[in-house]
């Protein structure tokens, strides 16, 4: 989740991290009105980056809706990348935006290092601060450090990922649980020295459960739901 006030370079950062032109980047503040996201693997963990509309008060109803949504999803993020414009002194708007996320796990990013000589003051020290970095989304300077920092935060061993995954339906949660329990069985079976076809059967079951989640096979619940939720035919 990338947050910060308008025009500090959040979208450019998303593009830099995703390695593609996902978000439209302009010099005009408030270009990103709704949130955009990109899936990138970081240290083997799939990470969904969400770029949000800059946190600011605005008269534009569309942008205002974007800001409202940004605030809503900020709370669900595993890690907030709070972006500041390092080429100018921090403003009141920066501080008030920061207050909204200060208690959440976050990294403080001084962007536009290509334009600015040094890091600014220490007034950004919220409870959830996990570190601060200088970088330039434009030139790529410091991006490697950022990726490493994200990897540290999201790696399962660090436990930064919230226990509650964003699975909205019981069916999805069941599929993931089935996959997980099949995988832990595979681990036990392999450790006990069971012949390989047994852990292989577990892994196959896990893959099947995940395939259902991804819609690659039609599980009966989906089909049942169709008949349960819609009145079809006679």
């Amino acid at each position, binding site marked *: 989740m990338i947050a910060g006030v308008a025009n500090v370079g959040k979208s450019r950062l998303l593009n830099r991290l995703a390695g593609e032109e996902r978000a439209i980047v302009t010099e005009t503040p408030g270009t990103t009105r709704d949130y955009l996201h990109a899936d990138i693997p970081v240290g083997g963990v799939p990470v969904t980056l969400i770029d949000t509309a800059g946190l600011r008060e605005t008269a534009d109803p569309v942008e205002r809706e974007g800001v409202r949504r940004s605030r809503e999803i900020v709370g669900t993020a595993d890690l907030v990348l709070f972006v500041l414009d390092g080429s100018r002194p921090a403003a009141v708007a920066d501080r008030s935006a920061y207050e909204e996320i200060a208690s959440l796990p976050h990294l403080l990013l001084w962007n536009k290092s290509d334009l600015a000589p040094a890091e600014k003051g220490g007034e950004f020290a919220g409870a959830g601060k996990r570190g601060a970095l200088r970088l330039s989304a434009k030139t790529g300077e410091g991006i490697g450090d950022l990726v490493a920092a994200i990897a540290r935060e999201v790696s399962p061993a660090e436990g930064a990922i919230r226990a509650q995954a964003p699975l909205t339906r019981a069916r999805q949660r069941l599929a993931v649980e089935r996959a997980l329990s099949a995988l832990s069985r595979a681990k036990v079976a392999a450790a006990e020295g*069971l*012949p390989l076809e*047994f852990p292989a059967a577990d892994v196959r079951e896990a893959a099947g459960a995940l395939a259902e989640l991804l*819609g690659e096979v*039609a599980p*009966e619940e989906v089909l049942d739901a169709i008949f349960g939720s819609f009145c*079809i035919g*006679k």
Partner: protein
Amino acid sequence: MNGSPYEYKKEYDVIVVGGGHAGCEAALAAARMGRSTLLLTINADAIALMSCNPAIGGLAKGHLVREIDALGGEMGRNIDATGIQFRQLNTSKGPAVRSSRAQADKQLYRLRMKKALEATYGLDVKQAIVDAVVVEGDAAVGVDTNLDVRYRGKTVVLCPGTFMKGLVHIGLVSYPAGRAGDFPSMRLSDSLRRLGFSVGRLKTGTTPRLDAKTIDFSKTVRQEGDDRPVPFSFDTSAIRRPQLPCFLTYTNAATHDAIRSGLSRSPLYSGIIKGIGPRYCPSIEDKVVRFSGKERHQVFLEPEGLKTAEYYPNGVSTSLPYDIQLKMLRSIPGLESVEIVRPGYAIEYDFVDPVQLHPSLETKLVKNLFHAGQINGTSGYEEAGAQGIVAGINAALRVSGDPPMILSRADAYTGVLIDDLTTKGAAEPYRMFTSRAEYRLLLREDNADLRLSETGRRVGLLPEERYRRFLAKREGIGVFRKRLEETRVGAGHPLCAAVEQAGDALLRPGITYAEALRRPGVTGAMLLACDPELRGATREAVEQAELSIKYEGYIRRQEDEAKNMKKYEEMRFPSPFPFETVPGLSAEVRDKLVRVRPDSIGQAQRIPGVTPAAVALLLVMLRRGA
């Protein structure tokens, strides 16, 4: 056909075309089920001939042989009677992937099978070349031969192997043949095309055969069979024939250079062969080109029989020119002065796209017509035999008006084989692997009889006395298992000491044998060693009880999954079902459905490219009663 053919006076219930491994099982099954049966073969001296490798079984193929046997087929008993080297493969691995394989005496194998056919009441064997399937209305009613003879039959089973427009290639030389040395069947596939079948072309190949007295076996590594050969058939008590060794040698850089020097005259690489060959059984030239980094390839020298000097060099299937075959072979240690008895060759042949079949192996286009074996795009004697027995049984059941025997993916490898063929077609010659079966923990070689004897009995193929022996065996397993569940391990029981000696965590006194057996370190053999009273049980009872207890959780989960799948298999499309006009399907999905015309929702789900959304639409149509 000129004018009207001579019509043979007898009408058969089942006519089987082809006397190979599929045709023999089909004809025997139908005749043993009491149907008057005619088997037509191009060459009565080549019945059940092993055109390629003189061996039966192998990984996943051994499973198929056991299944054929459990249903009441002949392949297992035939190899048990004529095998000259038996080996259990993958013994260090788990129970689901263990397989049996045996070298056969090629001539004895064919003669014994021919005798089994001849000894079967109600089964006529005749030599003839079949030119056409005779169809009246929408159903097959017989066949016409090249001698203008018409045989009438209520059902027809086609098992022509590689014979339909067979074309043998050796280097740039090619000639029509069903197999090197046999007539091809030049007209049958045209007759099928006229009936509307989609016919394609595949390729396979075989190795040269070598003269033993020109082989220096001292330069090779001797490979013995198992000390205690395990039979294929549940009906065979022991293998008594003397066993022969095989010999292992390797190709080398000189071999590979020789092969490369001949590629310009290879029918494969010069583009002459259009048919698609099997990736998993490549020719030696294919291996050398595709795996150019590999310094050597294994070559097993396998005897073709007790009374012949011919050896089969397993691993060097080739269609290179004769001079290159000789040069390549003579570069291999032990083969420096080898003489070729018969050169290796490739063969192209017509096959019929198997998506045009029901899972009973009856064609969708022509009623009472069944296809089995290489005509369906498979390769391998075992794959052929498994289809042959299914087609034979179903032709027989059709004659009596009974519903077909359908084996599902959870019942048997045979079910997996037929479902794969009829759902996905055959882009290359199809070979069975254990990885193709999603329920492979259930589909083991050791329990094929437990899975299929009831079915074999129900359709009327498995004889009464064999069925009774099976029932006794099943009961023995149950009794032994119950005993393991009820006997408790007291303090100071020898089993505790055995477990301690093995370095495992100590057994808690008071647990049952069954509970002890669930522990990874405890085996059935340990129980037997510790408790003399258990030793009265048969080997099978111990094996089955051990497997069913040890892997109970896994087995139950796969059984649950299988049950789940079965629901969709039972949601059957009425015939005909208008796949062409299901609204909301993409053109791509519609084309796939129209090509396969699945019998059930389950089959539709397994067609590659048919999306869950499309399946949901089909379900809607089904429930509406479209």
